[in-house]
């Protein structure tokens, strides 16, 4: 076991645990979108889970750092919050905020983060840039909403895990990156009818079952 100090609270966790997991297990919430406990290595793509470790110059992503004995950690320094707010605003600048009509309302990870960071969901600092396609309806039983998706990749991971090979993947590059149902043509050829993994894992309601 390893002992560390997070925001002046002493916690004890198993050796080899990531800092993010250690905090979450001890009811210290750190904003995170791309972290899944069962992943061997975190993909570290959402850039939300910053924390400050004593002795380190800059905040680091807590999902990629393993705990060490006597580590002293702060989760809310100005530098940490600045990066988190900045990343969060960037995500919101590409997010179509319409909570009332969204299935994730009230359980959405973005709502939770907004509350913690005290950033309004309708951020005004950055220009809103939405994708042209509001819904990808090409899948026989699922719909995908690019302007909700935060590209955390969890759906792709669970799909791969559940079905051996992923029906969904990332497509395009850079700013245009989306999740795509490549070649998911016929329902009989894909496991999606009986599986709901991606819909359940999505933190923001960007994949839904067709009505």
């Amino acid at each position: 076991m390893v002992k560390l100090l997070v925001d002046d609270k002493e916690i004890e966790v198993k050796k080899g645990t990531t800092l993010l997991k250690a905090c979450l297990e001890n009811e210290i919430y750190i904003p995170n979108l791309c972290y899944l406990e069962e992943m061997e290595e975190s993909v570290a793509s959402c850039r939300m889970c910053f924390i400050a470790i004593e002795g380190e110059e800059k905040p680091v992503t807590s999902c990629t750092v393993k705990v060490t004995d006597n580590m002293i950690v702060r989760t809310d320094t100005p530098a940490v919050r600045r990066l988190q707010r900045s990343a969060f605003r960037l995500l919101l600048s590409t997010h179509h905020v319409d909570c009332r009509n969204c299935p994730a309302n009230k359980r959405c990870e973005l709502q939770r983060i907004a509350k913690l960071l005290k950033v309004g969901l309708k951020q005004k600092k950055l220009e809103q840039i939405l994708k042209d396609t509001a819904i990808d309806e090409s899948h026989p039983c699922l719909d995908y909403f690019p302007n909700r998706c935060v590209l955390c990749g969890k759906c792709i991971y669970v799909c791969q895990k559940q079905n051996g090979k992923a029906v969904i993947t990332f497509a395009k590059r850079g700013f245009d990156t989306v999740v795509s149902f490549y070649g998911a043509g016929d329902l009989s050829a894909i496991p999606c009818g009986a599986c709901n993994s991606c819909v359940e894992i999505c933190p923001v309601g960007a994949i839904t079952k067709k009505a």
Partner: protein
Amino acid sequence: MNPDIKEKPNQIFSGILEEAQRRKNEFEADSAPKIHIGVATCGIASGALETKKAFEEALDEQNIKARIHTVGCIGHCYAEPVVVIDYQESGFPPIFYPEVTPGKAKMLVKFFLKEGDPRLEHVLGATQENEMIPSVMEFSRFNQEKRVVMEKCGHIDPEDIYDYIADGGYTALEKVLRRDPVEIITEIQESGLRGRGGAGFPTGKKWDLARNAKDKDKIIICNADEGDPGAYMDRTLLESNPHQVLEGLVICAYAVGAEKALVYVRSEYPLAVKIVTKAILQAKELGLLGKEILGTSFNMDIEVFQGSGAFVCGEETALIQSIEGYRGMPQNRPPYPVHKGLWGKPTVINNVKTLASIPPIIKKGAAWYREIGTENSPGTAIFSIVGNVTHPGLVEIPMGVSLKTLIFDICGGIPNKKKFKAVQIGGPSGGCLPAEFLDTPIDFDSLTEAGAMMGSGGMVVMDEDNCMVDVARYFLDFTQKESCGKCTFCRIGTKHLLNILDRITIGEGKPDDLNMLQTLSEDIKSGSLCGLGKTAPNPVLTSLRYFLDEYEAHVNEKRCPGMTCRKLTAFYIDLEKCARGCDACVGCCPVDAVFTTSNRKKGIDQILCVKCGECMVACPPDYDAVMTVSPPELAPVIERPKEAVEKSK
């Protein structure tokens, strides 16, 4: 090691060396004139193959026997196609001819090879000291360079392994095979060699980490992705002297304990792919690669992998993903590739130039290498210098030379009597430095401190006519498109930076934009996952730091001081300078915006003008009457005469 085995590489290699020497002697003893033509991609692009054909035809027609020797690139891009003619019987030393067109080639065969007249007006210089023709070594473009990595480029035929061997190639490998691998790593550590792929990580240390990694199967990768716009030194090296890179790879594999290596080349480099593939085959045939190299128990194979050419695939973890068949997306480090790289195996990834530095270091020793360059950045730096300089091209200089020496002495300064404004170093990840920084020595640490970076060695020189906001926009446009899309800051942040810059360059910047550019840039730098995002804001941050006044002019006065942002600039004709009756600019305007005034001078219809600048090019230098002005409202209003208005309808 058994002493017999220890001597084996030496015995086998001396046989190979003898053959190489025999061929070289045969070539040199031939009294026929020798024509050396540079046929790397840059030469070919300037017509070197046509030049070669013209030589062949002319020799045939004139019935002259001469030997054509195709070589790689010597880096003098401004002079391509480059030809060196070595005609001993004429009594002249070997002569360097720049810009040899097919016509010039035929002329040289007729006058020089047939009649013995070297046509001195076409000569750049002699390549050896002599009493007749000034040597090229008198030009600073030649004598201030220090060639370690590119020493043989442009002198040997890249497609003939014996050319390399006769010039001292593969002796370092032979030497290495008789030594202990650990000694080799120590030697590289002592040389102070730092990786030339951008970050400057100590090469010896990297090798040592990989050697000590537990997993037995280790892999070496030569990184030749080279995606920076305007950078082409790795391509040139592979095309001009592939064996020096391969030799470096084999030495690395021996030192680290690997048996497998890959050369990761972008598929947009077909000539490099072809030449490296051929070089590997040739090395195998001679037993310098493959099983039991030079009779030892050391086996090693090299394969070529063609990458699809994304800039981010040059980042080592993305490169590994791409070889493994996944999307080229960077991964979090640690684990570092030296611990867990390709297929989970310990992997050394080194840049082309890093590997090409190895044979000279082994041959001449760490102490010799340390004498070149500076304390913390030993050795040489290779830059591809483009933009507003008189002699663009590839330059290899000792580290520590100042930017001023490089730009003004070696590359001939700024053409057209313009003033130097800035230099962008390190490609899209680097920064723009203004004139105050011209005394900065070129080395890893000084450049980083100044806000630029060594990067992979792209350098763009800019004169007073450049707009620094537009330059920042240009680089951001590149990185934004090349972002892999994985992480939030880079994927979305660079898009916002670009949108803001776009806005500013069309005069729609808002007062808060500069603040936003600064803070967002800082956040992207600290928050991004990989080096692409961490460095993408550098052009914005440095131009904000050193050229804030230009940003302010755009935002507050809608004025572009460099007069390049089209929306903020107008072209007009100075009636004092315009020559009555001259029509030079009329026909070149694609939209018929140029009209004739009542006293037969010219004016520009500001409504029709698309600001292409063609009229400025067409106006004879004696008049130089086309002017630019910013903001555009300042352009003098010249009425179009009535009949002209009618006619244009």
